[in-house]
């Protein structure tokens, strides 16, 4: 290393100690997972059909939920960042409610609205014959409900940080608001949308409470990885560890890949 010599920085102990403990606290459980993994029986356990089914369902539903969040959340973030309307602060607070709501409560609330006898659910069932609870679509809905605030907050932040005068320049060149949004605003905040989508996807992948409440726990249909882990823990701890390890590996690999390619240096 030929880095120029820098004055050695002394880190005060009252900061260093809690920082080290914090790091340990985050890393130790992961290490525990690795230590207790039954490495010898791992290949056999991975080959069991239930594991791959749950993994595939998890990846598919998390991706679908992210797409739903982007489609609805980006316009919502734009509205919050660019349009002055009465009650904007209230709307912004409402958007963040799923962040603080226990996911199980979110699941119950979803049942009350989209359940067979719910406010919208009964109408959907009667009119279109569509039933959402305890289906794969229900999993997507539950994950999107919990994960959308992450996307909206990230995109709204990006929009507020972007220079709105580019939009004025676009207007003077003849672009209406929609064209300005698609041709100028969206490309300018693309890194923020990507970062928000990654956060949103990660949250959706780990979703448990709202999913099990609203969509149940049916293998192959609504049993995502977190649900499978929880179920396995009751009967076969070794299987739970293997499932956890798979979920951990896949999510870390995907997030690391996306971070380098899309989100760039932040």
């Amino acid at each position, binding site marked *: 290393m030929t880095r120029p010599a820098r004055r050695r920085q002394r880190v005060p102990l009252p900061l260093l100690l809690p920082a080290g403990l914090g790091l340990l606290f985050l890393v130790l459980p992961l290490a525990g997972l690795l230590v207790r993994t039954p490495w010898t029986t791992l290949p056999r356990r991975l080959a069991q059909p239930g594991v791959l089914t749950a993994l595939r369902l998890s990846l598919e539903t998390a991706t679908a939920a992210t797409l739903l969040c982007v489609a609805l959340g980006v316009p919502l973030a734009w509205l919050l960042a660019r349009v002055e309307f009465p009650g904007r602060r209230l709307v912004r607070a409402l958007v963040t409610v799923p962040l603080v709501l226990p996911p199980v409560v979110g699941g119950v609330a979803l049942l009350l609205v989209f359940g067979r006898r719910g406010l919208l659910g009964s109408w959907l069932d009667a009119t279109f014959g569509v039933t959402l609870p305890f289906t794969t679509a229900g999993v997507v809905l539950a994950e999107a409900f919990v994960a959308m605030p992450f996307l909206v907050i990230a995109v709204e932040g990006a929009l507020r940080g972007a220079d709105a005068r580019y939009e*004025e320049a676009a*207007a*003077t*060149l*003849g672009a209406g608001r929609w*064209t300005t949004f698609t041709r100028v605003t969206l490309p*300018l905040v693309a890194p923020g949308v990507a970062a928000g989508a990654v956060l949103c996807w990660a949250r959706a992948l780990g979703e448990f409470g709202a999913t099990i409440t609203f969509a149940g726990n049916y293998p192959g249909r609504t049993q995502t990885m977190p649900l499978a882990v929880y179920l396995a823990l009751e009967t076969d701890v070794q299987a739970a560890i293997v499932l956890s390890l798979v979920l951990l590996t896949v999510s870390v690999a995907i997030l690391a890949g996306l971070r380098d390619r899309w989100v760039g240096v932040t």
Partner: protein
Amino acid sequence: MTAPPLLDAHLVADRGAFHLDARLRIGAGEVVALLGPNGAGKTTALRALAGLHPLSAGHLTLDGVDLDRPDRRVWTPPERRPVGVVFQDYLLFPHLSALDNVAFGPRRRGADRRAARARARGWLDRVGLGGQARHKPRQLSGGQAQRVALARALAVEPTLLLLDEPLAALDARTRLDTRAELQRHLGAHPGATLLVTHDPLDALVLADRLVIVEQGRVVQEGDAATVTARPRTDYVARLVGLNLHRGHADGHAVTVGGLTLTTADTVRGDAFVAFPPAAVALHPTRPDGSPRNVWPATVTGVQRHGDNLRVQLAGPVAVAADVTPAAAAHLGLRPGQPVWAAVKAAETRAYPA
């Protein structure tokens, strides 16, 4: 009666406590500079013309069409005005190439992709940047970015071209070249052009006519020769480097403060009297000889000014005098020192206020 001007505007707008009330008329092919100190309302006027700031009263008529008439609830959004804007820091879209930046306007105004690009290529060639068509804005130098911004604004063939401090972001050397080139393009623009600047040199080189605003109001307008010869406010006088005083005239005598100045011009009533700092001579004792305007003064400051020194004087009237370093050394000038100031009647100019 001449042809009606292409732009006929009475801009009344409010921005917080600031109030703008300015009349502007610009003919076809004419370049008008809107000149004024910071915060005078230049940028608000430009934004109002572009439709980015609403008028609270007045009107904006361009080529016979009312774009803004607040009293009749007529308002045209910016994207439907035949107006092109070169912004102060250009605001080139960072994600688009130079070519696509210039093609953006024609594309939005109905040209298909190929036609828009062809037109953009023509404009880039015209500003001498045909070779940089594929460059992103961050790969362009300041001068090149300025020319792309100009090409982008002109590519929509605007009836009214607005430029907000187009040279302010450039270094001195680039500024000189870009100013000369800008002059060429503005001369070729058939529509009306409004140039907002606080740099008198930009205004004098680029514009046919100057409109000077201070505190939201037009304080003086006219061609460069008139404005520089007969400033009407302290700001304009400083801009063109003249001492300016307002007083009461009676023939060849103008009374300013406690002093009566003799001038070559004949005026009666309220009048301005103006003279350059170089016309003020300084003497250690009261000079005698030819009929002169002579008064005792006190030196309050001395600064470099080009090859000379500019001396600020207090007394019956506050004036600036330019003296050579040799003369200053001879007089031993320093703040607080009493001197005699003298101005020849032939070097003053008096005109009605």
